[in-house]
């Protein structure tokens, strides 16, 4: 038996013997089979349709979301339990009525224009998308919804299905989070401004103090005697140290404040220049620079980052023949990993996080060992770039910096086979 789509069933007939005088019987049977074919097919289709409807019904009725459908003129065709709960209308109250009844007044024109456009063009630009809108409840109250629209063609024309989700809670949480973030940012900015201006204001008296100390030594040094001069020197050292602290505080609060446009920074050139200065001051040390990329960032911040790291290595390495290696590699995710490692005395694992704090030093204060803010500044610079910085290594100190793939980097075309050059 055949239908429009081809064979739908096979009818088998058995005869034990052919009787004479019944010519055309086979042809009649064939004709009956021909008429039976479409009937069988239609019956099967109806059964499938009923099953599919039942399935659709079961799914939509169980859904928490509102699931509705409408025809091309915007009249509601179906309305599930979720929709009843969400909008306060029962299915029998709304089916057949225009969809605009669940749309706030001010959005209705947009909706009717959209319907008209669909009628004209035969397509919907919203179909297949998820949009955020406002819904209107039976009691007149509004609430935010997320709507995903599907469309299909039925004999009467285009029809739409909509899955609507009440996102009141999500919106509230988002707003609360955004508010908290704004507050945090404001407090942070205020604190940084305070630190910045306080350190700036402290610089002026510090300048006076150093000036007077200088002239005290010059004009009255003879009268003070050796012990008096020793006091003077201690005062001057402390004042210089305090001044250095102020400079570092200003640096720390400046990172991320300046709003500098990121530019391409050649780390190879940058690090080599710093290494040259460091090497000149420490002739027995060995500074190697490996393969470093050109990254996009704040040149002042990046210079400070590597200056601080090299300075730290040299200052805390604890041996005159220290070897410091600065190297880089590309990460599989497109990010950049940089390392500054040395064979010095290293940092015990339990202190590796602490040293990134402000004013943290492992050896206690002294004027020659820095202010303890160098690594805090480094961390902030890397934070601004969206990266991470940490310390690892079993022998010596190995500072690793990871910059995200979002910090566009360009690597030298050819890998230097030696990896490291002096």
């Amino acid at each position: 038996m055949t239908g429009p789509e081809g064979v739908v069933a096979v009818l088998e007939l058995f005869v034990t013997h052919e009787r004479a005088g019944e010519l055309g019987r086979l042809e009649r049977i064939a004709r009956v089979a021909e008429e039976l074919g479409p009937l069988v097919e239609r019956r099967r289709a109806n059964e499938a349709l009923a099953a599919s409807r039942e399935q659709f019904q079961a799914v939509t009725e169980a859904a928490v979301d509102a699931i509705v459908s409408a025809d091309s003129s915007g009249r509601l065709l179906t309305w599930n339990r979720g929709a009843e709960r969400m909008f306060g209308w029962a299915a029998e109250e709304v089916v057949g009525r225009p969809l605009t009844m669940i749309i706030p007044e001010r959005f209705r024109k947009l909706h009717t224009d959209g319907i008209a456009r669909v009628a004209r063009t035969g397509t919907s630009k919203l179909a297949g998308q998820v949009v955020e809108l406002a819904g209107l409840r039976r009691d007149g109250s509004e609430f935010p919804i997320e709507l995903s629209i599907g469309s299909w063609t039925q004999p009467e024309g285009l029809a739409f299905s909509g899955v609507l989700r009440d996102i009141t809670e999500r919106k509230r949480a988002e707003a609360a989070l955004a508010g908290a973030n704004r507050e945090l940012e404001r407090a942070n900015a205020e604190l940084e401004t305070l630190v910045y201006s306080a350190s700036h204001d402290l610089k002026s008296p510090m300048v006076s103090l150093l000036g007077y100390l200088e002239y005290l030594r010059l004009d009255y040094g003879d009268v003070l005697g050796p012990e008096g001069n020793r006091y003077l020197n201690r005062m001057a050292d402390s004042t210089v140290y305090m001044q250095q602290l102020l400079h570092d505080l200003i640096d720390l609060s400046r990172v991320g404040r300046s709003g500098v446009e990121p530019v391409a920074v050649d780390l190879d050139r940058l690090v080599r220049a710093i290494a040259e200065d460091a090497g000149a001051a420490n002739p027995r040390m060995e500074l190697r620079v490996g393969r470093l990329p050109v990254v996009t960032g704040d040149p002042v911040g990046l210079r400070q980052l590597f200056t601080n790291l090299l300075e730290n290595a040299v200052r805390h390495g604890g041996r005159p023949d220290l070897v410091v290696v600065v190297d880089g590699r590309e990460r599989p995710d497109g990010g950049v990993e940089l390392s500054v490692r040395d064979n010095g005395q290293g940092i015990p694992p339990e202190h590796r996080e602490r040293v990134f704090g402000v004013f943290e030093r492992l050896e206690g204060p002294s004027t020659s060992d820095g202010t303890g803010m160098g690594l805090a500044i480094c961390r902030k610079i890397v934070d601004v770039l969206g990266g991470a910085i940490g310390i690892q290594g079993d022998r010596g100190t190995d500072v690793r910096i990871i910059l995200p793939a979002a910090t566009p980097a360009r690597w030298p075309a050819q890998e230097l086979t030696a990896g490291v050059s002096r």
Partner: protein
Amino acid sequence: MRTLRILLVEDDHDHVFLIRRALADLDDVAVAIEVAGDGQQAVERLARSRFEAGGRPQLILLDLKMPRMDGLEVLRHIRADEAARGLPVVVLTSSERQEDREEALRLGASWFVCKPTDGRRLRSELQQLADHWARVTA
């Protein structure tokens, strides 16, 4: 010995003292220092000096951070003033803020001198300045 007339624009009394001290024993040149306590005073002093024969300053030492009118504003005034335009202005700075320095240069600062964190350094910078003045006005 020739005398260099300086208008020092500085609000901090200690800094005024220390700069006076550094300028007191320059070689080969004597300095006469007049002090303006803020930008407003400096601008008024310059306007007045136009009518004082021999009283006009030959060099301005200018602090950037001051109440009422800051150093950059004073610089703007001086460069816009027909009579004062040619005066060399040396900016006194303890500011590492690159923007301040760039702005000062853009507005026509002639030189920078570091605030007296180090008396010897300040003195040597001011000595260089005085030598330069002696050469160009000889």
